[in-house]
C-alpha cells in the first residue's frame, strides 16, 4: 500500500514569508496528524483531524499557523508569517482510527523547513 505522501521535502524561506506544506494520507485513514520536530527534539503534535474535523489543536500557534483537511483526505499546513524558531521538520501521519493500539499509524518522511 502507498504510504503517507508529503511535499515539498525541503523548503528554505526568509522570516516573515509564508509557506505551506501538503500531506496525502493513506487511503481510508480517517485520522490525520501534523507534528513539529525541532532539531534534537522529539516530535510534538500540532493538530489532529478526524475526517475533516479538528480533534486537537491545543499546541498549534494559531496566530501564525493554520491547517485544513479538505474533504477528509488531503491536508495543508500553513505558516504565515514564519519566524526563525519555526525551523523544523514537519511530519504528517495518518491512522485508521484513534481509539486503539496505533491502528495502522504511519508517518510520512516530512518536510524540512529552514527559516533564514
Amino acid at each position, binding site marked *: 500500500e502507498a*504510504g503517507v505522501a508529503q511535499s515539498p521535502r525541503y523548503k528554505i524561506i526568509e522570516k516573515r514569508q509564508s509557506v505551506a506544506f501538503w500531506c496525502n494520507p493513506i487511503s481510508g485513514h480517517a*485520522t490525520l*496528524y501534523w*507534528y513539529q520536530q525541532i532539531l*534534537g*527534539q*522529539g*516530535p*510534538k*503534535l500540532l493538530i*489532529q483531524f478526524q475526517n475533516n474535523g479538528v*480533534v*486537537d489543536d491545543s499546541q498549534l500557534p494559531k496566530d501564525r499557523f493554520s491547517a485544513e483537511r479538505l474533504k477528509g483526505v488531503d491536508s495543508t499546513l500553513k505558516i504565515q508569517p514564519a519566524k526563525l524558531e519555526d525551523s523544523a*521538520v514537519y*511530519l504528517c*501521519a495518518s*491512522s485508521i*482510527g*484513534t*481509539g486503539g*493500539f*496505533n491502528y495502522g*499509524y504511519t*508517518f*510520512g*518522511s*516530512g518536510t*524540512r523547513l529552514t527559516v533564514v
Partner: protein
Amino acid sequence: AQTVTQSQPEMSVQEAETVTLSCTYDTSESNYYLFWYKQPPSRQMILVIRQEAYKQQNATENRFSVNFQKAAKSFSLKISDSQLGDTAMYFCAFMRKGNTGKLIFGQGTTLQVKP
C-alpha cells in the same frame, strides 16, 4: 500532563553486540500504550515495538525487546545482535488509551552501530 524522558542523548555499540536504551515516563493514567520508534536519516518514523500497559508480559519483536516496569514507569528497549542498519535516532513514545491518537515523544537517543 504526560512526559517522556530519554536520558541518553547518544549511545554506541559494536556490531553483533547488545545495547539497551532507557526511557522513563510520567503519567497519572492507568491505561496507556508505550512505543519505540526508529528514525533513520530518511526522517520517516518507523514503529519498532509497542506495549500495552495492562499486559505484564514484555513485548518482543525479533531482535528487539522491552523491559516494562509499570510501577517504576520505565520502558527500556534492548537491541540484540546489533546490525549496521540499526543506526538511527530512537524515540520512546506514550499514548493515552481511549479516543485519542496523540503520541507524546521523548527527546530521542542517537544510536550508532560500529563495524
